[in-house]
């Protein structure tokens, strides 16, 4: 998943996001998580090229009880 950095994250950015996620991320893991996350964002941002228009998400809820 080697992708260009479309959403670069500073260590402070990651620390804030970690707090909001209520996750305990030991300091020695932060650099690896940040590097991987930047790569993941680069992958996910390929979806920006799609014209999603009125397309709904591929989910549905079945209201039947049985």
């Amino acid at each position, binding site marked *: 998943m080697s992708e260009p950095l479309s959403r670069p994250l500073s260590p402070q950015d990651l620390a804030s996001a970690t707090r909001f996620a209520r996750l305990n991320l030991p300091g020695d893991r932060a650099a690896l998580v940040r590097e991987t996350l930047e790569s993941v964002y680069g992958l996910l941002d390929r979806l920006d090229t799609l014209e999603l228009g009125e397309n709904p998400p*591929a989910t549905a809820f079945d209201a039947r009880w049985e």
Partner: protein
Amino acid sequence: MDAYQLSLAEAAEKIRTKELSPVELTESVLARADAVEDKITAFATRTPGLARKAAVQAEAEIAGGAYRGPLHGIPVGIKDLYETAGIPTTSSSAVRADYVPERDSAVVEKLTAAGMVLVGKTHTHEFAYGAETPTTRNPWDLERIPGGSSGGSGAAVAAGECLVGMGSDTGGSIRIPASICGTVGLKPTYGRVSRRGVASLSWSLDHVGPLTRTVRDTALVMNAIAGYDRDDPATVDVAVPDFTGGLEDGVAGLTIGIPVDYFTERVDPEVSAAVATAVGVLTGQGAVVREVNVPMPDHVLPTEWGLMLPEASAYHQSMLREKADLYTPSVRLYLEVGEYVLATDYIKALRARTLLQQAWRDLFEGIDVLIAPTLSAPAVSAENPAVTWPDGTTEAATDAYVRFSAPANVTGLPSLSVPCGFTEGGLPIGMQIMGRPFDEPTLLRVGQAYESATDWTSRRPAL
């Protein structure tokens, strides 16, 4: 031939005619596992005592005229993600080392009702989150991985430690070990088989299905496990066919779509050549080939990961906070990273999936099945699980494998992996036959036609 080497269908016929007893078959399989398991480590938990008890019961039932059908008395290995009442179900993770469920998963209930004999719980890449299964080795080359995440089931079936292995497939996890262990593996259509009681990796992408020695064996297992289940909200209330019904109908008149892109990029030439030769076998039987372009190739993996990362992190949210140190490093990293995927990014992936579904529906206009390599490469080294391509770049095994298997997860389309040859180095190669939604019988028909014309499934690893 020892009994453990039989296909399910062969063993079932011998059991039905009382030429072979379930006890003899189970003892043969257990002895084989005793002989090879220390080299392969396919099982997280073996259950020989329970197996012998079930085999004795099956033998008595059959002797008394209560034959339940072709699965009766057949040894099966169940991936350790599937809950089994009273038997440890660890997902091959220290996080769940002490978990013993009280109830069987839906599939295990059905297989037990059909009379199968559980010989153990097969290893998975931890929580199904990876394609290596590092606990386990490939029976064809003990220095290589069996693939994953259902690597234990693939290795066990290939080595003769059970006749059927159950797997799950979120990005390729049935077809990857099937391909590189030289077995058949079916990822059914999304919604065809209940996942109730199987630990989730990603609810939107998880499928469950069998790994077997032959196509017919897969059809026989599907007959027992397919069907709607209100307890799995993804299952679809559609008619369940007899999956063995059209197996011998041949491929004359069928149109096979052959991709001219995506599945042709960064692929081992021995794999491409084997699949091309296999397609030639089918055209020799009257199938017609049509070249097709794979739609939205750049959006498959972002959709796969955009769904899987946050869903997996949601499933593991409490466990990651309580037992982070017990996860293996790569799984822990994936789970941590998934915590930071925005909800809007996740929903964007769900919307992209709708477009991918429509694009693949259009792709199938004018073709009956699509055939491609199951994977870009054969089994890689266990010590260094990566593929090095001719341009010098390297790709982690999971990434290299999932590239070709993920389209069927994102689209939910059924995909059958069948053995289609070996590399010069003796490693199995698989091809995947993809089809329309809920059209597994056509996949099985094509797979059977190919298998009948070749002898790959008769080869056994030298252990």
